[in-house]
């Protein structure tokens, strides 16, 4: 199973095996990773599963569609490497993906 590395803004890190096909958000929720609220349940409607993707992974993951970028406008302290974790679907290619959760989601 692909491993996803979830860092928080305090420098804590957790490596979780997430099933192929689940989203990085679902992997976090199912494993009680703090810092991801996912209020809308993954319908790209709330921006509370916002994460920063480690720079070296940015080109390896599918690009955000327009609706996701629009939604990231609403996120708390968005940066260039901001993504919504509900839109990142786990696959073998994403094995080792590193994401950092923001200090808060709202």
């Amino acid at each position, binding site marked *: 199973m692909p491993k996803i590395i979830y860092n928080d803004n305090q420098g804590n890190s957790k490596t979780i095996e997430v099933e192929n096909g689940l989203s990085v958000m679902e992997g976090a929720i199912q494993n009680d990773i703090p810092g991801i609220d996912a209020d809308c349940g993954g*319908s790209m409607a709330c921006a509370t599963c916002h994460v920063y993707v480690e720079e070296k992974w940015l080109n390896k993951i599918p690009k955000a569609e327009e609706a996701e970028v*629009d939604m990231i*406008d*609403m996120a708390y302290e968005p940066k*260039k490497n901001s993504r919504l974790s509900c839109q990142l679907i786990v696959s073998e290619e994403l094995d080792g993906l590193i994401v950092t959760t923001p200090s808060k989601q709202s």
Partner: protein
Amino acid sequence: MKKTDTIIIGAGPVGLFAVHQLGIKGLKSIVIDNLDKAGGQCIELYPDKPIYDIPAVPECTGEELTNKLLKQIKPFKTEFFLNERVEEVKQDEENWIVKTNNDNEFLAPNIIVAGGVGSFEPRKLAVKEAEKFEDKFLFYAVKDKEQLKNKNISIFGGGDSALDWALELSKFSKINLIHRRDEFRGAPHTLSEIKKLEKEGKIFIKTPCQLESIEGKDKIDTITIKFDSGKIEQIKTDVVLSFFGLIMKLGPIAEWGLNMNKKTIEVNSKNFETNKKGIFAAGDICSYPGKLKLILSGFHEVALAAVECFKRARPNEKYRFEFTTSSKIIQSRLGKK
């Protein structure tokens, strides 16, 4: 204090269908919601997005679903208390008293909490000094246009609200429109108007940049923004408007003594009652083994909760299960002959 049979908290699809299920049983209800209109997440988060899993409705938008539900409950002439948030819930013998931030008080034997993920509130600016100026020089919504005349106004956001207010207020004030990226998301006509006003020197567009700080003692003097390039700019500002949409906050629900599981209320799956007799929870806000956060699950949950509501509101009457197709009483309640 208004008396009713059931107080429904939340005017989303589940709250609206609760009105129906109570209404056909002859129970009165009132509905309270923090938003200015019914529909909840359907209206606020995805009014134009399609929903494909409402039984017998192959496709509809959040707005269409809301309008159909409102039509379905029209015969019950239910009173809605919008723009109001429930602050306090307290017990009064067999009844519950609910108080809102608008000082309305309601008394009923039943409460159905259909509150989604909580109440919608504006997403606030992250800088710490924002709070100090809020409601005086910094606003998350425009309530009074008059006080925004002949000012230096800095507007944050890249969506419709930010663009529409930039256009409107540029008629009599100097506008800075500040956004974290170069692209704005708005109607093509609005975007071209903005560009035109930028050329005329009425709107100053600052992108891609974000707010660093707000300066001023008793009022706002300037704001400081930081561009992606690292460049810092200080802008003379009297008023800041921020439009970053709404966020859902659980709010006071957590303080009503209900058993909570993360941000949800624990219920039994027989009648969706919480640990408090007469308080029910349905829709996204409730949790029980196997819970699915689907609108159709919420419909089922309020149908069953409504039966228990009947028993509590009419302790001396026997509950009779009836079909809308054949029950003359239900049909008369629906205004059919």
